[in-house]
C-alpha cells in the first residue's frame, strides 16, 4: 500500500485485482471437470483437477499480493 499524494484519495483498486476472479470462478464451474477420465496417478479428473486449482489459487493471490503491496 503506497501513500497517496495529498488531495488524491487512497484506494485498494488495481487492475491486478481482476486476477483474483480466476481462482474464485474456476473451482465453481463443475460442469467443466465432472468426469472420471483422464486419470492422474489413479485420481479421477474431478479430484486431481480440484487439487490442482489450489496451485492456481496460490499463484493468483501471490501475484496480486506482490504487485499491489
Amino acid at each position, binding site marked *: *500500500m503506497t501513500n497517496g499524494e495529498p488531495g488524491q*484519495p*487512497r*484506494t*485498494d483498486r488495481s487492475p491486478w*485485482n481482476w486476477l*483474483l*476472479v*480466476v*481462482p*474464485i470462478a474456476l*473451482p*465453481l464451474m*463443475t*460442469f467443466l471437470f*465432472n*468426469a*472420471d477420465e483422464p*486419470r492422474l*496417478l*489413479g*485420481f*479421477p479428473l*474431478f*479430484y486431481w483437477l*480440484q*487439487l490442482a*486449482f*489450489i496451485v*492456481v*489459487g*496460490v499463484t*493468483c*493471490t*501471490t501475484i*496480486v*499480493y506482490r504487485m*499491489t*503491496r
Partner: protein
Amino acid sequence: MSGHVTELVVFTLLFVLVSGMGFVASRWRRPDDLASLKEWGLGGRSFGSWITWFLVGGDLYTAYTFVAVPALVFSAGALGFYALPYTVVVYPLVFLVLARMWSVSHVHGFVTPADFVRARFGSPTLALAVAITGLVATMPYIALQLVGIEAVLKAMGITGHLPIVIAFAILAAYTYQSGLRAPALIAFVKDALIYIVILAAVIYIPAQLGGWDSIFDAAKAKFDATPAQGDGYLLNAGNQLQYVTLAFGSALALFLYPHSLTGVLASKNRNVIKRNMSALPAYSFVLGLIALLGFMAIAAGTKPVVGENGKADANTIVPVLFDQMFPDWFAGVAYAAVGIGALVPAAIMSIAAANLFTRNIYREYLNKDATDSQEAKVSKIVSLVVKVGAVLCILLLDPQFSIDLQLIGGVIILQTLPSVALGLYTRWFHRSGLIAGWAAGLASGMWMLYLIPNPASGKQHFGGSAFGLSNLGFDTRMTVYAGFLALIVNLAVAALGTLLFRAAKVADGDDATARDDYFADEGEPKVKDLDLTGSH
C-alpha cells in the same frame, strides 16, 4: 478396550504434554499487563506472518473437519468434496475485504464484527443483531469440536462423558490463564502433528489398499450400487448446483464468524494478512487429502462404531480407519492430532465469543463505564461459560443434533454478510433496511432448513442443507444450499427496504468511519492499539 492400550497411552501422553504448553504460553512474548482485554483476547495484536498463519489455519481447520468431511465423503461421495473448492475460493474472495477490515478496525479499535457495524451504520440495534447472530452461530461450533474428540475416544473403546469433561476442563483452565497466546503456541504442535499424520495416511494407507486406482474404483462400485440419488462418486444433475452453492456459500460465511476475525485482527499489518491469504491454501491441500480418507475407508471396508442407541456413528469412520490401518502407537499419535486439533479452535472460538459478549452486550447494555480490567474479567468468565455450555450441549443432546445446530449456524451467520462484508465497501444500505433483510434472511433460512428431510436417518425436518427447488414449485430434483438462497432473500429485502426507508425519509444512522480509514496501515499515527474505554 484391552486392544487399545498403546493408543491410549500415546494419546494421553501427547495430550498432557501439549496442555502443559498451554500454561507456559502466558510467559511467551510476555506483555506488561495481561489484565486488559486487548492483551488477553487479541494476544496484544502483535503477531507476524508465521504466527498468524498458524493461528488462522488453526481455527479454520478443526477436528470437526478432520472427522466430518471424510465421513460425508464416505456416505455421500463427491458432494463431500465441496470442502476443497470452498477453501480454494475463500482466500481470493476475502483477500481485499480483510485488509480493509484490518485497517478500519485498527483506526477505530474494533475487536468484533458488531463493533464495526455499530460505528459504520450508527445503529446499536443492528450491532446487537450481528453480535447475537455471532454468538448463536459460534456455540454449536465449539460443541462440534467435542464431537471430534468423542469420535476418537469411541474408536479407542471409551464410552461415557468423563474424559470429555476433563479435556475441556484443561482447555478452559489454560485459556483462562493465557488468553490467545495459548492456542497460538499450541497451533504449531497441532499442525505439525496433523501434517505428519496426513502425510503418513496418504502414502501408507493407499499402498496397503492397492493404490489410488483401486480406492477410487471401490468408491465407484459402492455408489453405483446404492439406489440413493444424492450420492455418487461424481456429481449428478441433482446435486451439482448444491455442490457449487455450498462451496461458495461456505466461503462467504467463513470470515463472518467472529473467531476467524480474531486471528486476522491479531496480525501486525495489512501485508501480513495478504501474504497469509496466499499461503493459507497449503492447508487446503491437506484438507483435500483428508476428505479422501472417506474413500479409503470404503476401500478398506471400514465399519463405523455402533453407538448405544444402535445407530452407527458415521463420525467415527476416520478414527476406526486409523485403528485398522496404522500400528497402535501411530494410531495414538493420529488420535492426539485430532484431539489437540479440537482444542485449538475451541479456545479461539470461545475467546471470540467472549469478546463479542463483553464489548457488544456487556459494555453496550449492562455496564457502560466498564474499566479495562473489568472487561477482561467479564471476558474470561464468559469464555468459561461458553465452554461449559458447549460441554452441556454434548452431554444433554444427541450428537447428531449438535451437527444440525452447526448447519443452522452456517446459514444464520451468512445473514450478517450485507452489514459486515458489504458494509466495508458501501454505505448505501439504510440501517433499517439491513435489519429487515437480516430478519427476512433468518426467517427464510429457518423455513428452508425446516423443510429438508433426511431419508437416511428418517428425520422429517432439519435433515441437511440441500434445499430441493421442487419445494418452490419447480419440476426438478435439483437442490441448492439453503444458506445461499436465504442470503439472496436477505439482500433483496435489504435493498428494497433501503429504497423504501429512504423514500419515507426515515432517519439513517451516522457513519463514524471515514474513507481513508479503510486503507490505513501499520506505522501511521491514526493506526493504534485498542481504545477500550473511549466510545465511538
